[in-house]
C-alpha cells in the first residue's frame, strides 16, 4: 500500500508546477552591464590592414550576469567583439566567419522566453538585439557587441573576417575562457627534463632517435601491455596547442585521481601531459588524443609523442577511463585520421613515415592492459606542424619509409 504522503505529493505536484510556471512567466527581465566589465578589460587586440579587432569571451557566470539568461546551458557561447574600420569605405563584418552556425539575437531571446513575463521577453529581445554586433561599419567608425556561437569547452578559437570593396582582413583568435582549467595547465613542462637530458638533433638524426624510442604505452606500474605510439608531432612552443585547436580539437580537464591514473596509458613513466578531444556530436563517437613531451628537440622545435583513441561503441567495463566506450582496434586508421585532419586544417608543414618494424597483425589482435583489442602496421607518422596556414599541396613528404610495402620510396 502506498504511503499517504505519496498521494498528497502527487496532488500537490501539479499545483506547485503551475505556481512555478506562473512565477517564471511573471518574472521581469534584468540584465547587467558591459561598461567597464572585466570582459571588456581583458579583451585581446589584433590589428592589421584597415581593421582593428578586440575580442573577449565571457565565462558562463559572466554571460549570465551580463545578459540575464543562463545562455551556456543552451549550448550557446557569446563572443564579444569590437571592430574599428579605419578605411574610407563601408566595411562588412562576416558573422559566418566566427561560426557558420551562429545564433541570431532574437533566436537566443526566443530560446529563453520561458523564464520571463511577456514584457520581460520583449525587454530581453530589445537588449539582445541592441547588444548584438552589427554587420556594417561606416568609414572611421567602431562597432561592438556579441556574436552568439556554439559553445566549445576550453580555449575559444575563431576567425574574424572583415570585407571591404576590394579587400579583406582576416584574424584568428585563441581566447582562454575563465572557469575552465585545461589539464596541461597543471603540468610544469620546463621541469619535466633536465637540460642535460634533452637531445638536440637535426632532421636526419631525429629519424634514428625516434627509431630507438619504446614502441608502446604501458599501464601505471609499467608492467601491462599498452598500445603503439604511432604519432609524433613536431611543433614550436605554443604552436602545438594552436594547431590542434585550429584542427577542431578541444582541451580536456580530467581530474587526475587514482581511477584515472590506473586506467590511462603511460609513456615515459607518466600519464599524458595533455589530452584533447574531438567528438562527432554523439557521446559514443569521439576521438581522444594524448600527448607526451619528449626529451628531444629538433631545429628549435619540441617533439611530442601522441596516442589516438577512437571510441566506437558502448562497452560496460568497470574502472575504465574511457568508461562506457569500446575503442576502434584499427590504430592505423586513427593515425591516418589525425594526419588528414591536420593536413586539411592547413597545419601540416611536412610529414614522414617511420617503420618501427614492430607490427601487431590484424589476424590475431593483441589485447592491451584494459582488454582493448588492437592491430597496427607498426608505422609511425611524424608530423611537422605549422602555426601559419600551409596549403594542402605545399605539405612536404620527407620520404623516410613507405606506408605500403613494395612502394619503392625507401
Amino acid at each position, binding site marked *: 500500500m502506498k504511503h499517504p504522503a505519496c498521494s498528497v505529493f502527487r496532488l500537490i505536484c501539479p499545483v506547485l508546477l503551475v505556481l512555478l510556471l506562473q512565477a517564471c512567466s511573471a518574472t521581469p527581465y534584468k540584465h547587467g552591464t558591459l561598461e567597464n566589465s572585466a570582459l571588456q578589460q581583458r579583451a585581446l587586440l589584433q590589428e592589421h590592414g584597415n581593421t582593428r579587432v578586440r575580442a573577449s569571451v565571457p565565462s558562463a557566470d559572466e554571460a549570465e550576469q551580463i545578459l540575464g539568461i543562463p545562455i551556456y546551458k543552451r549550448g550557446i557561447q557569446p563572443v564579444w567583439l569590437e571592430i574599428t574600420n579605419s578605411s574610407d569605405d563601408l566595411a562588412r563584418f562576416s558573422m559566418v566567419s566566427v561560426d557558420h552556425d551562429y545564433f541570431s539575437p532574437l533566436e537566443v531571446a526566443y530560446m529563453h522566453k520561458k523564464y520571463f513575463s511577456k514584457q520581460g521577453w520583449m525587454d530581453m529581445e530589445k537588449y539582445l538585439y541592441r547588444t548584438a554586433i552589427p554587420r556594417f561599419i561606416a568609414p572611421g567608425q567602431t562597432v561592438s557587441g556579441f556574436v552568439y556561437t556554439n559553445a566549445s569547452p576550453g580555449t575559444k578559437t*575563431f576567425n574574424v573576417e572583415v570585407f571591404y570593396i576590394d579587400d579583406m582582413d582576416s584574424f584568428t583568435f585563441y581566447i582562454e575562457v575563465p572557469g575552465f582549467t585545461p589539464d596541461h595547465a597543471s603540468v610544469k613542462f620546463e621541469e619535466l627534463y633536465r637540460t642535460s637530458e634533452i637531445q638536440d638533433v637535426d632532421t636526419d638524426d631525429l629519424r634514428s632517435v625516434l627509431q630507438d624510442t619504446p614502441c608502446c604505452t604501458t599501464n601505471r606500474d609499467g608492467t601491462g601491455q599498452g598500445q603503439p605510439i604511432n604519432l609524433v608531432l613536431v611543433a614550436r612552443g605554443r604552436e602545438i596547442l594552436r594547431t590542434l585547436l585550429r584542427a*577542431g580539437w578541444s582541451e580536456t580537464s580530467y581530474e587526475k585521481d587514482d581511477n584515472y591514473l590506473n586506467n590511462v596509458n603511460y609513456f615515459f613513466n607518466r600519464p599524458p601531459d595533455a589530452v584533447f578531444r574531438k567528438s562527432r556530436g554523439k557521446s559514443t563517437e569521439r576521438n581522444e588524443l594524448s600527448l607526451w613531451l619528449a626529451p628531444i628537440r629538433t631545429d628549435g622545435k619540441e617533439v611530442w609523442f601522441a596516442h589516438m583513441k577512437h571510441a566506437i561503441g558502448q562497452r560496460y567495463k568497470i574502472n575504465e577511463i574511457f568508461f562506457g566506450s569500446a575503442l576502434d582496434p584499427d590504430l592505423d586508421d586513427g593515425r591516418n585520421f589525425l594526419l*588528414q585532419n591536420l593536413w586539411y586544417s592547413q597545419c601540416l608543414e611536412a610529414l614522414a613515415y617511420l617503420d618501427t618494424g614492430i607490427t601487431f597483425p590484424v589476424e590475431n589482435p593483441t589485447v592491451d592492459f584494459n582488454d582493448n583489442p588492437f592491430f597496427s602496421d607498426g608505422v609511425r607518422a611524424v608530423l611537422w606542424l605549422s602555426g601559419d596556414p600551409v596549403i594542402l599541396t605545399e605539405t612536404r613528404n620527407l620520404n623516410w619509409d613507405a606506408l605500403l610495402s613494395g612502394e619503392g620510396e625507401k
Partner: protein
Amino acid sequence: MSNMLIKRIRLLTSTTALLLLVACATAAPAPEYLKEGDWKTRITSQEKDGIKISAAVPSAKESKALFGKPLYKQDIQPVWLEIQNNKPFPISFLPVGLDPSYYTPLEVANTDLKDKNGNAKLVDEFFLSQGMGALKVMPGEIRSGFVFSKLDEGTKAFNVDIIGSVRDANADNYFETFTFFIPVPGLNIDHYNVNWKELYSDDEWVDLDKDRLIERLEQSPCCVTDKKGVGSGDPINLVIIGKPIDIYTAFIRAGWDETETVTRTSSMKTIASFLSGGEYRYSPISGLYVFGRAQDVAFQKARDNIHERNHLRLWMSPARFNGEPVFLGQISRDIGVRFTRKTITTHKIDPDVDETREYLLENLAYSQSLKQFAYVKGVGEVPITQPKGNLTGDPWFTDGYRIVLWVTSEPRPIDEIELLRWRIPDMSKRNK
C-alpha cells in the same frame, strides 16, 4: 581553387568546417524516376589526367541489403568509390575530404555494440574488407571499397581528393579534386516534379536589361499570399538569378537540404520526428504563394545539433536577365515551434528577416556558390517598432530591400565576388 582563397580559409574547426565542393558540377539533377534496386547501375565516373574515379551511393534499402544493418537509421551512408591510378607515381585518397568525420569500418560494424563483459571481439573481417583499406593507390592499380559517411539523403554531394607524392622535395605535390553530386533514391524531392520548361509558354517570357529588371523587381508584390491569393505573408526578400541546375548545385554545395513533397510517407516521417524530437531534414514545408502557385522548390538548412533551421522558397518568374531566369524567393529563420489555431503547430520565425537574408549571402559566399550580388527595393520598410505579421501571425520587420544573388555552379572564390551598386541599403540603422 586559388591559393589565395586557401590561405584565407585560415581556420576550419569542427563547428565551422564547411564542405568545400570545389570542382564544378557534373551530374544533372535527379531524373524523374530514380531506379532503386541495384546501386551498381547508378555508378558514375569522372576522369582527369590519368586518374579515374567512379562513385555510387546505395540507398537506405540497398545499404541494408548490402551490410545487413539499417545504416541510414544510424545516420551512416556508405559511398562506394573506385580509384584507378594511371599516373607514374603513387597517389593517396584522403577520406577526410569526403567527410571530415567519416566512420571507420569497425565503427560501423560495432554501432549496436552493447558489450556487457568488456571482451567483445570488435574486429569484424567483413566490414574491414568492405572499406577502402590503405589510402595509397600504386601506379597501374585500381582500388575500390566503401567510405562510410554522415547521411545526406536527396542528393549526396562530396569531394574525392587525391594527392600524389611527387619525389622532388622542392616541387608542389600533385593535388586533384573530383566533385560528385549524386541523387540517391528514396526521397520524393520537390524539384524532381517541376517541369521547368512548361512553367511558362514562350510568349510569356521577357528578356530584361538592368534598368527594366530593377523596375520589375521593385514593382513585384511585397509578400507571399495564401492559396486563394489573399493575405499578406512573409516578405519576398530574395531574388536569385541562375539556371535551375546552377541554383541546385549552389545550394547543395552550401550545405542546404532538399525538400520532400507531401506524400503519405513524408507525412508519417514528419509526425514521427515531431513526436520523437528527432530530425527530419527533408520535411515538406508549407506552400506559400507567388504567381498564383506554391513555391517551385524549397531548401532547408538545419544545424547539426538542434531543431532550428532556415527555410527558403523559390518561384521561377517569366523574366530573364542576360539569358538566365530570375527567381523570386523568401527566406526565414525558424527559431522555434509554437501552436496556432490555424495550422496546429507552426514554426516561429526570426522577426529580423534582414538578418536571415544577410546570413544567406555569407553562406553562399563562403561556399563559393556566389558570383555577384546587389540590392533592390520592393518590400517597403517595416520598422522594428511597427512589425507586420505573416500568414500565421508571426511578426517581422525589415529595411525593405531585396537581395539579388547570382549563383554559380563553377566555384567562385570569395575575394572575386562582385557587389553591383544598384541600391545601397542604409545598414547603419541596424541594431539601433
